[in-house]
């Protein structure tokens, strides 16, 4: 087992080296020098460009691994700087995104868990609500954006609403499924012990359905983190999604790459923390 871990780590490192190596090779400056005339150099200066840079025209426009490395160091050195609306540190942008995801996700949780309980416990409610869920579930959360912007009139709150609407479905469906498939004999135990409804919900049904509910919560968090980037690109202003869009407008692909890396790492951290929670509530039986 230990040797397997070691081998897989070595293999991972090797793949990382290969990828970065291929990337470095592909973005390497070519030695072909484009000669420019004095007039061209003069013109470039007039346009505010550095003729020395034009000397390096053979260099690919795509950032090299070294460029990214420098950006990472620079960004992480001052993650919380704030130089006005269009120039904020990555930490601040991440904070905005995480706050939106947190709020929307929490609202979804507060609606989905009780409603899922109701659906799971009552076949009547299940059948009555099923058509709505089936129609609403496949709608891309971004399709709600115009409606949200028109009704809520606040772009930041609209972003939160979009997170809410995309994370509510997996939690709702998994909670309903988990509650509906609680083993009959566990409920019978509670019945023969005359356990009151509320205590039954919290001490039998909730722990029995917890692994399924947590799976839904983990899926929801994954989706919410995917959607926040797109939502913030649309809404603008703040957030990691806006950061990506803003840096694209600045033509700073290095910063875009940096943001992509950060989005991936934060998403992984969120998923790992839910995996840990999931393990905590999982039982054998």
């Amino acid at each position, binding site marked *: 087992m230990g040797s397997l871990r070691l081998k897989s780590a070595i293999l991972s490192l090797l793949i990382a080296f290969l990828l970065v190596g291929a990337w470095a090779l592909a973005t390497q400056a070519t030695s072909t020098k484009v000669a420019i005339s004095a007039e061209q150099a003069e013109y470039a200066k007039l346009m505010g460009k550095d003729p020395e840079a034009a000397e390096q025209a053979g260099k690919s426009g795509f950032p090299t691994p070294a460029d990214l490395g420098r950006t990472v160091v620079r960004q992480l050195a001052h993650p919380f700087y704030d130089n006005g609306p269009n120039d904020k540190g990555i930490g601040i942008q991440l904070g905005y995104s995480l706050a939106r995801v947190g709020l929307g996700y929490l609202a979804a949780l507060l609606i989905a868990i009780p409603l899922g309980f109701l659906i799971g416990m009552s076949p009547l409610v299940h059948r009555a609500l099923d058509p709505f869920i089936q129609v609403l579930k496949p709608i891309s959360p971004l399709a709600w954006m115009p409606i949200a912007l028109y009704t809520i009139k606040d772009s930041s709150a609209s972003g939160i609403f979009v997170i809410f609407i995309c994370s509510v479905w997996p939690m709702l469906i998994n909670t309903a499924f988990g509650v509906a498939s609680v083993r009959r*004999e566990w409920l019978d135990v509670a*019945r*023969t012990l005359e356990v009151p409804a509320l205590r039954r919900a919290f*001490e039998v049904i909730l*722990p029995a359905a917890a692994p399924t509910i947590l799976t839904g919560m983990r899926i929801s968090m994954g989706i919410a983190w995917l959607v926040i980037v797109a939502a913030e690109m649309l809404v603008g202003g703040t957030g990691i999604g806006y950061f990506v869009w803003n840096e694209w407008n600045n033509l700073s692909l290095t910063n875009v790459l940096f943001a992509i890396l950060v989005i991936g790492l934060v998403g992984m951290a969120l998923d790992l923390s839910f995996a840990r929670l999931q393990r905590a509530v999982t039982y054998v039986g």
Partner: protein
Amino acid sequence: MSADDVVMPPLLAVQGLTKRFDGAPEAVFEDVWFDVAKGEFVCLIGHSGCGKTSILNVLAGLDSASGGHVLFDAREIAAPGLERGVVFQGHALLPWLSVRGNIAFAVRSRWPGWKRAEVDAQVEKYVALVGLSGAIDRKPSELSGGMKQRVGIARAFAIEPKMLLMDEPFGALDALTRGTIQDELKRIVRETHQTVFMITHDVDEAMLLADRVLLMSNGPRARVAEIVVNSLPVDRTRHGLHHDPQYYRIRNHLVDFLVEKSAGLAHGKAPSRPLVVTPGLVPDDATDSVAPLARRSA
């Protein structure tokens, strides 16, 4: 011991119980009569499909009958209740709770006002009774099948019910474990004077544990056809059981019923009031060992 010589009304009286499933042409069981006296151990034996588990579920209040009455303490059973403890076929422990947690769950249901120390004391007492004190903080998944069923038994005893309902509690256990737990159950029941109604398909188990054995005919329209009084000495043990001269008379009677007679009594051909027989007391030279000694009516 028979309920006849008890002046008090029986703890449990089943009167004309019938169960019919929707759409089925015939009832599963029909017109079932029997009763259980306080302090008595009664076993119900029958082939699968005669509705044994349904009867137990009705007694537990988990299922409702299509007809007839079940009186417990002279009151009709309508819902599950703490005065009837249930030991489930598949132990039904809550897997996310430890042994302590499972039993404490039941104890707190029975006495909601109890303080933690009182609950702990009650839990530890009954865990010790089934000999699992060393495993009290383990989860059910870390226990063997026999240990799990012991926890199920401890949970049912811990709420000190007036009556214990057991649905083939040892059916899933290997023979060796089953024997040990049967001995334990017999000891605990004798110590606590617990009233027990138990379903089994093991004739020897019934003869060891039961004061009376209810024999059910096959379904559909099954009935309790005979009540066999177990006249073996009260202090019988699993090891000494088969040396008693009565042992084979009773055993043969039970097996003969299950092998030869129960099928023929399906479709409601069994008498509506069961015959009470004491095959253990009938001498071997008697030709008809199933002669009814008494006809009981409720």
